[in-house]
């Protein structure tokens, strides 16, 4: 079996009016199952575009992207939706929970689109909420939860389908230091204990430090790609 993620010479070109914007310029990248990777770069470097492509929300203009052996480049929108539903979990900077909808129902959402029975959805979503330490808050609305708690609901929503890849786009960007650490520890545990591959986009060096590999992106290309050494199995975890 090959790598989880294989990008070969990926280009992404947008057209804004008459101007062509080259967001990605022939980027190649391989990520193995079970890795914890931080992607860093200034705004406009192309890291968001890369995340969108890795998350199957977007497709490369040129080049190849294989996820778990599936060539994503020429899939239709509904097939991409299936891949996102079954293999990818998203965690966003702004949490992106559905407003006026309980934590449980937010966590149920991917299972709803998977067509599971309501009972099955509830059981699995409740289990996911328990894993992120939100037992007893299933029926709270997002507005009744703190930022850190909301982000945990989002992680539960990402986890509920047992994805092979978890994409976290600045997951701590809107959180205080305390909550940030809690969230990062949850991610670390998921990577370490359950072998979920995590790709993390961040500005902050101390957040990036949780990852075992750090990729710097600039002008749509990889600037540096280095193993920072601290594999999760070597660092102590206090949840």
């Amino acid at each position, binding site marked *: 079996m090959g790598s989880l993620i294989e990008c070969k010479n990926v280009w992404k070109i947008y057209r804004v009016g008459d101007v062509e914007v080259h967001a990605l310029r022939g980027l190649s990248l391989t990520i193995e199952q079970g890795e914890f990777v931080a992607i860093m770069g200034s705004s406009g470097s192309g890291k968001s575009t890369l995340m*969108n492509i890795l*998350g199957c*929300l*977007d497709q490369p203009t040129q080049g190849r992207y294989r996820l778990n052996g599936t060539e994503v480049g020429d899939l239709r*929108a*509904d097939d991409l*939706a*299936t891949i*996102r*539903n*079954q293999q990818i979990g*998203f965690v*966003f900077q702004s949490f*992106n*929970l*559905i*407003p*006026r909808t309980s934590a449980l129902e937010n966590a149920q*959402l*991917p299972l*709803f*689109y*998977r*067509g*599971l*029975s*309501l009972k099955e959805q509830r059981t699995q979503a409740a289990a996911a909420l328990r894993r992120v330490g939100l037992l007893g808050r299933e029926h709270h609305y997002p507005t009744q939860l703190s930022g850190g708690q909301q982000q945990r609901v989002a992680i539960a*929503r990402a986890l509920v*389908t047992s994805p092979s890849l978890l994409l976290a786009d600045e997951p701590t960007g809107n959180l205080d230091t305390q909550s940030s650490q809690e969230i990062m520890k949850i991610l670390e545990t998921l990577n370490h204990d359950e072998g979920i591959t995590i790709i993390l986009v961040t500005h902050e060096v101390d957040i990036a430090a949780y990852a075992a590999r750090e990729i710097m992106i600039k002008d749509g290309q990889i600037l540096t790609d280095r193993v920072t050494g601290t594999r999760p199995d070597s660092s102590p975890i206090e949840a």
Partner: protein
Amino acid sequence: MAAFVWLTILTALRILGRNRLRAGLTMLGIVIGVAAVIAMVSIGEGAKRAVQAQIATMGTNVIIIFPGVTSASGVRGSAGSAVTLTVSDALDLKKRIPLLADTGWARRDVMQIVYGNRNWNGPINGVSPSYLIIRDWSFTSGGPFTQTDLDSAARVALIGQTIVENLFEPGEEPVGAVIRIKNVPFRVIGVLAPKGQSAQGSDQDDLILIPFSTAERKVFGTPFIGSVGAMFGSTEQVEDLPMAAAQIREVLRARHRLQTEQNDDFTIRTQVDIGKVQEGTSETLTMMLFAIASVSLLVGGIGIMNILLVSVTERTKEIGIRIAVGAKRYHILMQFLIEAMTLSLVGGTLGIGFGIAGAKLTTLIAGWPTIISGNVIALAFFSSVAIGLFFGLYPANKAARLNPIEALRYE
């Protein structure tokens, strides 16, 4: 799939429940449209049924033949002014046309009727006994006159309800009483059961029926024995009326020795013709109301589309989240279609309720008969589903085609 639809309906209800005022205002167009359709059609149907009942009071499957117009040197008289139909015409028609179950004849004139110290001016009809059967008259007391009465020109009379009310004290028994018509004494032998207004609006109960021969010889006086004011025929089946009418025309033209270029000297009307005129009026009314209701439904549909477009914009980010976690196009499409259909269905159901209430209220207040038909309710129900589907399609499709990246970034 069933779980998906069910949960989507619940979600739709919850979202609509959150914006009750908005949902209510959006539904208003559909509510009014559907209520208008139900109420109007119920009133229209009621009116139609009332007209049909009135026409039925003419008798069953009746053909009426009036004498034609006189035409002397180009000056034409009014209908019935010619003395062209006779008793022998009527008898001959029955003999020659097997389709005719019976024929009858009548002459009428308005005369003074006196009983005790009261008098009344009412139409006196000299009729054949068969007339009673053709026009379907029944009796509240007493009974009809017979062929013997006709043969002997007996002075017997049948009186209508209006005559009873105007000549007799309340509670007084008219049967057996002697009334005078143009100073000729008549014994009342029967009181006719009331028929109410005719399709033309005249009082059908304001009449006295006496044997034709008695009228001709003892009351009216006539320059031409055997001439009649009108002839009546009846058929077994309503479908036979046009054919019978055509045959009557042929026989009468032959009997009157009319050349091909000459016009008929009589006019034939069937019950169907008379009914058609009435139904035509009520159908025009119904069509007009349908047009008004359709416009209202159209406006209601546009209202739903409008509010759904607003909703799609408001919930762009939510749609983005749903797509990101794996919603396919049809999931999003279905979600908004179901919302649209929930709006239109709830509106339609409310409209049906208001429509029925409106119809009942009309009966209660104005006293108009209304008939609420299941067909109309079903039609209203399905048209509201169709409106939701049709006007929801564009906003739903717009939502389903959102780009997830842009939708997620939407604030």
